[in-house]
């Protein structure tokens, strides 16, 4: 195995900021975000694509950051949970989660948020069933999901009333 092909320099945008880094090719995107960029909001749970805690938005679409290599993000745009708020103003979904007991320990929350932001972008008026299906790939052991579903429906209503900020 030649060592030359075991590192690469990548350039990408994360939460609107450009980064260029040289990384081992086997580094996962989740570990890159956490260890190289110190964006520890993206949580790493199962590391094989089951728990959903590491979900990020890859060119606007939800994806498991533990199932991607950092080199695959070269030239792409990533949004993590740190990129959802607008300065000090939380995303309506973040606010709604805190108001509806949509989180307790917070481990699943970053993955829930990125997944549900994508849902609300696609479908501004989801049903409770739509929300449950959207988060079927995100495990939460605290809330029983009820608060998360309620928060999403509330956030969706607020966003529709406000003219659809996403």
């Amino acid at each position, binding site marked *: 195995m030649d060592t030359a092909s075991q590192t690469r320099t990548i350039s990408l945008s994360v939460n609107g900021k450009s980064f260029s880094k040289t990384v081992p090719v*086997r580094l*996962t995107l989740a570990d890159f975000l956490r260890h190289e960029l110190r964006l520890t909001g993206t949580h790493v749970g199962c590391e094989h694509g089951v728990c959903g805690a590491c979900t990020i938005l890859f060119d606007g679409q939800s994806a498991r950051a533990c199932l991607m290599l950092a080199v695959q993000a070269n030239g792409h745009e990533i949004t993590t949970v740190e990129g959802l708020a607008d300065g000090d103003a939380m995303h309506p979904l973040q606010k709604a989660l805190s108001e509806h007991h949509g989180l307790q320990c917070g481990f699943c929350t970053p993955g829930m948020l990125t997944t549900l932001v*994508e849902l609300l972008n696609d479908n501004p008026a989801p049903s409770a069933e739509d929300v449950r299906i959207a988060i079927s790939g995100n495990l939460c052991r605290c809330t029983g999901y009820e608060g998360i579903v309620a928060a999403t429906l509330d956030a969706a209503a607020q966003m529709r009333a406000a003219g659809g900020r996403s």
Partner: protein
Amino acid sequence: MKPPPFSYHDPATLQQAVELLGQLDNAKPLAGGQSLMPMLNMRFVLPDHVVDLNGIAELSGISASADTLDIGAMTRQRDIEFSETVAWACPILSEALTYVGHRQTRNRGTIGGSLCHLDPAAELPTIACVLDARIEVIGPNGLRTIPFAEFPAGYMMPSIEPDELVTRVSFPLWPREAGHSFVEFARRHGDFAIVSAAAMLVVDAMGVITRAAVALGGVTAVPLRMPEVEQALVGHKATDETFRAAAELCRAIEAVGDVYVPAAYRQHLAVVMARRALEQAFARIGGASAKTH
């Protein structure tokens, strides 16, 4: 770091990918990564080289002619799920995709990757089985086409060589008036099926079944086509009793048992899911033939 050490290659063309796979020893093609990446993270596979196919634009795309739906191997599952062409030409495929993993995995996962991973409980291999899909494969010796019936060589093992790549999946289309259904039983939405069933039906104006295809996922080591069930349907009146009797033949399958589900329960589910798929396929048949029932 979770994955083992490997050299990374990201060819921009299919030609380059084929050359790389022909030259490199112990190389693994990386499609959507929703199965290979977990296997790397758990170190179930230890490739010396990973050949990433995600930069090869020519491997993605959906097109339909009068009798065939062609889908490039690297087409994302979400793009197939949301494709109006697929919904029109091959609605059973659109239906099955809503059961494939989760939105987050369908955004990355590909049709070619799922077929090559060949999990017996996965939805796309079951659909390829019921529709007699043709799998186009390229290697150092050029292109060849494998009928799906010959595609599984064994449990999670497609009959393609390590230096070959799937390029395209072609689904022969059924007539517009055909009824279709894909149903599955899983413990949670997005889980692999414990048992899934896919059915296609054509019924004539007299209410007699003229063509039928039935396949089951999750019951045996590879997706299972049920010719005996199809024979028990064709030439018979489409009635609940016909469907019940045909589905009952699934009880004789030598189903697999595992830590979650004993074989006898899979046999039971195979009968139930086959019957439900047939009933739903029939209910969806448009036109007068369905009304006579």
